[in-house]
Structure formats: structure tokens, C-alpha cells
């Protein structure tokens, strides 16, 4: 058994090693420009992966923004607020959401959600919400440092060709896919809050909601873990995103524009990659994605465990 443990650890290290060694061709070819360059043109030998990194971060944070409030609210409802007879079946249904294959979510996104976004949703947002952000962007632009960048970002946020496929759809589909993760972990964190704490609050005359809010405050580390694990899942999701994002490299946060992520580029381009450098560049995308998810997970671990703080 110890042997197996060693084997598994080695297998994991092997992933890192193999991906790195297969990436060296492309990384040597493009240097740091691999991360910062914004031109990805394999025919011309240009490998700048910034639009993919951007697309990954943009869609994932969008998903987190949508899924975290809903996930926390669901967890609160299940553990604290709902009638007891409702909590069990509701919890099972939410867990079942995780049992839908990502391929099915992707197909549903393309054939059901995308037409909805194309017709009423995106034009409506472009008409009524875009002007507000245009105005806010104009306010930020004259500010120093990040002002101009953020200003432009807010200005373009609710723009794009409005074809349904794109960043917004990817963000929504990802949000749906990470809700069960966020619910499960937040719920465990809430359940770990000592019963005595709840009883004390009730005894002081707190309402159900006030007790729940207190429990949430005590469980905040666990909720943070739920968020980061959800984010980690969103970063690496491949098939659903490949189907719904439209596969065009775009490095501006335009919600209604098609885009591309690290994960979605690999299945979209590897079948056509014949040059060894091209293959190597696509594997390097995988390496960057892997590094990103590891960073998120290890970062979360550090925050949760606080190893620098001495244990009593």
C-alpha cells in the first residue's frame, strides 16, 4: 500500500515533468512571449497564448461571480433555513446536477441557451445595461495607473457580435457546472459549525436568518475553499467550453464576443497540428493550464491551513 501511495505521487510528478519536457520546444521558440504575446498564428510560427490565458481567467471568474452567491444561498437554505422535510430531496437534486456529463451541458448550451442569449438576452443587455458601463468606463479612463485599462474593459463589457456563442455563454454554463461543488463544500463547512454556537444565538432571541448569518461567518474559511475549488474546476473545464465559446482568440472582456480558453484551444487545434513546434505549443498550453489550477489549489490550501501560524 505504501508502494501504491508512492506510485501515485510519482505519477503526479510525472505529469508535470512530461508536460514540461514536451513543452520546451515551443517555450524555447517563443520565450516569455508565449505568455504575454497576443498573436497565435501557427502557420507564421507565432505562439502568443495571452488571449487563451485571458479567456480562461475571464470565463472562470465570470462563472465564479454567478455561481458563488447562488451556491452559498443554496447551502444556507439546505442547512439552516429550509423546512426539514425539504432539505433532503433538495440536497439530492442539487448533487445530481454534478451527474450530468459536461458534453451534455455543452450541447444544451449550444442548442438551447445560445438561441436564448442571441435573441432576447444579449440585445436587451446591450440596450439597457451597456450604456451604464459605457458611462462608468468613461469615468475611470482619466484615472492614473490601471484607470485606462479598466475604463476600456468596462466600456466594452456589454458589447460584441451577439451571436449567442461566446464568453457570456461559457461563463453561464461553467457557473451551472460548478454550483454543485460550491454547494457541497459550503454545506460541509456550515455543518461543521458547532451546534452550541447556533443554540446560543437562538437563546439570545436571534431569528433563523440571523443564526444562519452567524454560522456563515464562522464557516467563512470553508466557503472560501468552496469558491477556490469551484474556480479550479471552471479553469480546466474543456468540452463544454469548446462547444459553447465560439473558438476565436479574443483578449478583451466583451461578454457577447466569441473567445477561446487554454483548455478549449487544445481539442480545437491538436487534430490539425502537424509541425512538432505546434504540437509542443499546444502541450505548453496544457502546462500553463495545469500550473494555473495548481496555483489556485495550493494558494487556497495555504490560506485555509495557515502553516506559518504556530499550532498550539
Amino acid at each position, binding site marked *: *500500500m505504501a508502494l*501504491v*501511495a508512492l506510485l*501515485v*505521487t510519482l*505519477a*503526479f510528478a*510525472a*505529469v508535470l515533468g512530461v*508536460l514540461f519536457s514536451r513543452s520546451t520546444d515551443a517555450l524555447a521558440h517563443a520565450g516569455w512571449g508565449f505568455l504575454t504575446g497576443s498573436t497565435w498564428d501557427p502557420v507564421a510560427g507565432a505562439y502568443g497564448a495571452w488571449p487563451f490565458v485571458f479567456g480562461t481567467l475571464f470565463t472562470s471568474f465570470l462563472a465564479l461571480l454567478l455561481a458563488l*452567491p*447562488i451556491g452559498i*444561498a*443554496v447551502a444556507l*437554505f*439546505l*442547512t439552516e*433555513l*429550509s423546512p*426539514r422535510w425539504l432539505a*433532503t430531496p433538495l440536497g*439530492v437534486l*442539487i*448533487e*445530481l*446536477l*454534478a*451527474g*450530468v*456529463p*459536461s*458534453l*451534455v*451541458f455543452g*450541447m*444544451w448550451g449550444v442548442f*438551447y441557451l445560445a438561441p436564448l442569449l442571441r435573441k432576447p438576452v444579449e440585445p436587451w443587455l446591450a440596450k439597457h445595461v451597456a450604456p451604464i458601463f459605457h458611462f462608468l468606463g468613461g469615468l475611470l479612463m482619466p484615472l492614473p495607473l490601471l484607470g485606462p485599462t479598466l475604463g476600456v474593459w468596462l466600456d466594452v463589457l456589454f458589447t460584441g457580435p451577439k451571436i449567442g456563442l461566446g464568453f457570456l455563454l461559457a461563463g453561464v454554463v461553467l457557473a*451551472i457546472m460548478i454550483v454543485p461543488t460550491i454547494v457541497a463544500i459550503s454545506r460541509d463547512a*456550515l*455543518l461543521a459549525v458547532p*451546534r452550541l454556537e447556533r443554540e446560543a444565538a437562538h437563546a439570545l432571541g436571534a*431569528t433563523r*436568518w*440571523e443564526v*444562519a448569518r452567524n454560522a456563515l461567518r464562522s464557516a467563512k474559511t470553508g466557503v472560501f475553499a468552496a469558491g477556490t*475549488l469551484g474556480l*479550479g474546476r471552471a*479553469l*480546466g473545464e*474543456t*468540452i463544454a467550453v469548446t462547444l459553447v465559446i465560439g473558438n476565436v482568440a479574443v483578449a478583451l472582456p466583451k461578454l457577447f464576443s466569441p473567445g477561446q480558453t487554454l483548455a478549449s484551444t*487544445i*481539442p480545437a487545434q*491538436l487534430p490539425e497540428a502537424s509541425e512538432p513546434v505546434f504540437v509542443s505549443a499546444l502541450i505548453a498550453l*496544457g502546462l500553463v493550464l*495545469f500550473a494555473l*489550477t*495548481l496555483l*489556485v*489549489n495550493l494558494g487556497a490550501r495555504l490560506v485555509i491551513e495557515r502553516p506559518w501560524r504556530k499550532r498550539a
Partner: protein
Amino acid sequence: MTSLWRKAKNHGFTALAGLACLVALVPLVSTTTFVVSKGAPALSWQFLTGTITSADDPASGIGPAIVGTLVLVLVAVVIGLPIGIAGGLWLAEHGRGRVGYAFRLAVDAMAATPSIVVGIFVYSVVVLAQRHFSALAGGLALAFMIVPVVVRTTEVALRAVPDPLREAGVALGATQTRTLFRVTLPAARKGVVTGSILATARVAGETAPLLFTVAYWQAWAYGLDKPIAALPTFIFNSIQQPAERAQQQAWGAALLLFVLVFGANVIVRLVTRARSPRP
């Protein structure tokens, strides 16, 4: 007055949280009805057993893809489950020190590894070396995804076994190993089985690890060292074709995959009657 306000807030937020539950359940209902309504018309005996030919051939079906998915899952289970369960056993029984911490870290990182990364890892190691796609490569990629899930669920299940049970085993004169296999593991059987089934169902529906390990293949399975058809790769290929019948077939196959994966989840929840605990 204040008390009225607090009561109103209590009801308001409870309603809001309930609403969030409804919002979260909409996609579940919507995907289920959508995949059933789109896929059901495509299903027929001919479709389930026929060979994969071109989309405009009325006799074509998805037989090889069904067989292929079963073979891939079997390979993944045979490789992944023993490793996962052994890893979980080790963690539960010996994983308290620094080494255990390091292993747990590796397992967590493995669980967080994006499926496409697993796919291109196996592609880099097996496919590029062998210069051809194979069922074995696909099964390995799926096994890689089974292991961390099974390790964690096995560990949790074993940890839940009360220590006095272990002590009783040792007190009766059994060795540590014998106690583990004859007392602790049987007591934790339910959790281990549940975790294994859920992990298996999850990888059965995975597409990304298969794209570059088994690729897209149409023929019946004819060897582990050979390329193999699979439901996810068939669906992913067909849904991107413009022909109407190709898309119909993709939806039919998607319904089957959905029933397989989702059905396993439903059955496990019903059988174990997993109750949502309340404080």
C-alpha cells in the same frame, strides 16, 4: 418595530435562498428534458446495435461506440480501482505523518488536474511513443481520473469506522493486515462501493481525456492496443457536423450516455439513501 423589521428580514432572506435553490435546479430540469426530447426520437434497436457508417446511411448506428465505452470503462476500473482503494487504505491507516501529508497533497492536486491535461499527458507518454491511438491509452487516462476520487472516498469511509472495532480485531489476535481486510474494510464497504461507482460513472461521461488517446474511431473494438470507438468521441464528432441526421444521432447517443451516467448517480443516491444531515 425593530422586531417586525427583523422578522421581515428573516422571511425575505429565507425566500431569497429558496429562490436560489429553484434557480440552481432550472438547469437540471432543462438539460434533462432537452436531452430526452432531442434524443428519444433517434433511439431504435437498429440505432443501438448498428455499425457506425456515414450519417446519411439509414442503417448506421452506435453499436461500436457503446461497446467501446464499456471496454474503456472496464480498463479504467481494472487499473484505477485497486490503486485508488489501496491508496485510500494507506492514507486512512498510516497517513498521519509528513509522508501522509505529502501524499494527500499529491492526491488533491491529481483530483484538481483538468481532464484535458490528463489527456495530453497520456497522449505525450503513450500515444506519441507508440505512434498510434489505443484503447489502453484511453483507459489509462480514465483510470488516472478515477484514482484520486476513490482514494479520498475510501479514506473517508475507513476513517468513519470506529477505532474500538479495529482494537477488537487486534485483541482477538488478528494481525494488523488481517484486521484491516477482515474487519475495517468490510465495515467501510458501503462507502468504498459508493465512491467507486460514482467515480466510475463520472469518467464514463468524460470526453476530453479520450480525444487524443483513442481519438475518433468507427469500427468495432478489436484489441486493447488498437483504437476504439466510444460514446463521447462519437457524440463530439457528430454534433459538430452540419448534416441533420448526424446531429440526430449525436443526440440519441447523448441521451444514452446521459442515462448511463446520470442513472448511476440516481441509483447510488436512492440505494444509499444519502440523507442531508442537519446540525
